[in-house]
Structure formats: C-alpha cells, structure tokens
C-alpha cells in the first residue's frame, strides 16, 4: 500500500506530465485524451489537475477548461501588461468578420448566400478564408438546392476563442421589438 507521501509525489509527477502535454499540444486536450496518453484513472487525473492548479497559482499561468478541453493560458491579471508590451498580439476583428461569424453561429447551418442575404453585402472570400484559417468554421453537408451549396457550422475552436463551452452560452439574440424598426 502506498503511503500518503508516495501518493502526493505521484500526483506531483503526473501534474508535471500534464503540464508538459498541455504546453506541447497545438490544441486543448480533453480529460479523455490526458487519461489515455498518461494511463490515468479519473481519480488520478482529478488529483493531479488540482496539484497543477495549485502550482500554477504561484506562477503567471492558469489552467483553463474550454469547450474542447484543458489549456494553459496567461493569468487574466496580466492581460494589461501583455497588451502594453506586445500590442501586436491583440487580435482585432473587423465588423464584417464579426457579423459573418455571428450569422453562422446563430443561424447554423447556413450557406454562403444565406450570409449575404442577411448582411446585404457580397461576402468577400478573405473573410471566409480568415474564419477557416482560424478553425472557427467548417463546411459540413450540403443544402439540397440548386448547386448543392455547402453548409457552414462553427467549431469548438470558435467556442474556445470566445470562452464558451457550448453554443447555448452564446449571448441571447436581441429581441426584435427592442430594435425599434417600425414595420
């Protein structure tokens, strides 16, 4: 039987392995993936994550759980410092891009022409390319109309980027009556 000290050491070791994998991974890692890669039980994972969280509390990082899994990010309280020293890291999104991704997020699945109809503007290929490049949208399936246009959906990365864990957490759509467009 393990002594308490051994167990603690063990969780410490596992927590370091988790830290490594989260840093080395290009995408967030789910609990399932962490358990698989490190051959852990639920209990071991949970305890090691607590140890990791405690260690990170003394550092500049925080453990964040997003829609697609765990990731390491710089603690919120340092955002202002980063914005001051590395202003180029602050990603700005154009209104056109925000409107486009909003149509996709709220009305999915949509076709390209659905987006153009709602926005009243021809969709520039640059905007779709940016959204594909960020991994925020994917094509999945086709609408059974002329030309069988591809259907666009948002991805878990989109949710990750906006700190959401589910599409249900999107801010509610504004009420039409409050928009004051008399019909």
């Amino acid at each position, binding site marked *: 039987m393990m002594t308490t000290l051994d167990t603690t050491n063990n969780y410490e070791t596992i927590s370091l392995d988790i830290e490594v994998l989260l*840093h*080395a991974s290009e995408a967030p890692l789910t609990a399932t993936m962490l358990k698989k890669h490190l051959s852990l039980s639920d209990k071991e994972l949970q305890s090691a994550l607590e140890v990791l969280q405690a260690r990170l509390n003394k550092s500049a*990082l925080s453990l*964040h759980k997003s829609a697609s899994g765990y*990731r*390491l*990010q*710089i603690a*919120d309280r340092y*955002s202002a410092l*980063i914005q001051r020293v590395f202003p180029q*890291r*602050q*990603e*700005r*999104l154009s*209104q*056109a891009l*925000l*409107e486009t*991704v*909003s*149509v996709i*997020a*709220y009305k999915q699945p949509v076709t*390209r022409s659905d987006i153009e*109809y*709602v*926005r*009243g*503007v*021809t969709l*520039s*290929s640059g905007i*779709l*390319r940016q959204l*594909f490049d960020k991994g925020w949208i994917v*094509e999945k399936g*086709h609408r059974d109309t002329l030309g*069988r*246009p*591809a259907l666009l959906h948002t991805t878990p990365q989109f949710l*990750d*980027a*906006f*700190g*959401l864990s589910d599409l249900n957490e*999107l*801010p*509610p*759509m*504004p009420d*039409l009556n409050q*928009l*004051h*467009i*008399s*019909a």
Partner: protein
Amino acid sequence: MQMSNLAESNLAPLRIYQTPIEHLPDDLYVPPQAFAIWLEQFAGPLDFLLYLVKKNNFDLTQMPILPITEQYLAYISELDTEHFELAGDYLLMASTLIAIKTELLLPKPQMSTEERDPKAELTRRLEAYAQIKQASLRLDRLVRLERDVFLALVSMPDQSIMNAELPNYSPNLLIDSLFKMQLQPDYQMHTVKVDTIPLSDRIASISRQLSMSGRRPFYELLDKKQGKVGVVVSFVAVLELMKRQLIGIVQDDFENQPRQLTLEWLA
C-alpha cells in the same frame, strides 16, 4: 416629414423625382472626401439604411425612398475599383428601393394577396440585419482569446535532443506553398472527403513546373509514384488551371507525330 405624405399619395409623382437635395436630412449627405471613412463605418447598404432609420426615426413604410436611392447611386459612382464588389450590393439595394417606390406610385391593382410585398420584405431584412448586428456586438463584448486573454507560448525541448537529425525539406515546398496560397480552391468548391492526393498540392506543383519551364508535356508533369489516381487528379488540376486561364494547350502542328497533350504557362 412633409415628403411622406407626398410619397404616400399617388399624385404628381414627378415632383418627387425633382425633389431638391436640400430637403434631405443632414445625415444623408456624405461629402465625397469623407467617403473612405464612411465605407469603414458601415458594413454595407443595409447597415447604412439601418442607421438612417434609427437616427431619424424613419418609418420605413412612410419614408421617401428616392433620396436614399439617389444617395446610394451617388456612392456607387464614387466607388473605386478597390471597393468594386460593394457597387453591386448598393446597386441591388438601390434597385430594390426603386422597385418599392414604383409599386407605391402605381395605383394598387386588386390582385391576389399572395403577391410579395417588397416593402415588408425590406423591413424584415432590415430587422434581421439589425438583430445580427446587435448579436455581433454582444459577441464582441465576450472575453476573447488573443485579445483579452492570451495563450502561454513555450518552446519545445532542444531540437538536437528531440530529433537527432535535421529533417531535410525540399525548397519546392516553399514555392508550392506560395502557389497554394494564391491558387486556393474556392471554399465553395465541392471537396472530396478522402483525397489521398490533394488537388491543391497537384495544382501548386503543376503551376510551379510550368511557370518555370514555360511548356511541358502532360505526362512529364505526372508524379509517377501517384499511380492512376495521380493521373486523374493531375488532369483535374490541369482543367482547374485552364479554367483560371493560367495555362493553355499547345497546338501540335506536327501532323506525323503522335498527338500529345502539351501544356504551357500563360500567366
């Protein structure tokens, strides 16, 4: 709005078309110099219309449409080539507005109620747009990764330890990636789920070879390792490049020789 009454009546339609510009609300007029700034402030004609409706408490069913139409047409004439795509959008919106006006000016025929009502449709579109615009502002207020919070970047362990030998990449990888960047198939194109030989890779590779050698027989462009599927994918790549008018077929004028497909770079 005094003009609303006129617009609603079926009398003297010509006077509406002659309405002098000074009757317009100030907001409608954008001096040409401010046009570039204006373009950045509105996401399109619907956005602009929405602004007018909200700013002036216009009732879309009552408002005179001609001034806005004129404004749109003025913008179209100001649009430079860089914003050419927008011209179509504004033209469409202007023609929609004109269509609405025309229907209002004509005596209403007693027709089926199924007839679409363009004004109601425009109102619906404006509402749908206003809703999405509001939603996008709410989305933008969420805490966003890489704007409000940041991923922690770290380096991998030393390359020498991770990997004894340096991988050797072909310089063609660089040029192909540039071709791919420029020749990316439109995202609307139908893509086959399992493509063992990606079309975009073939397009890039064939572009590179032809742009450097000028012309080449089709069979020399094939990657022999790719087998029959490679031939098919290469052929589709050639068709795609021909459609884009980047390559053409060399007319073979040696009648005695067996015909072969020779391609040349046109760009």
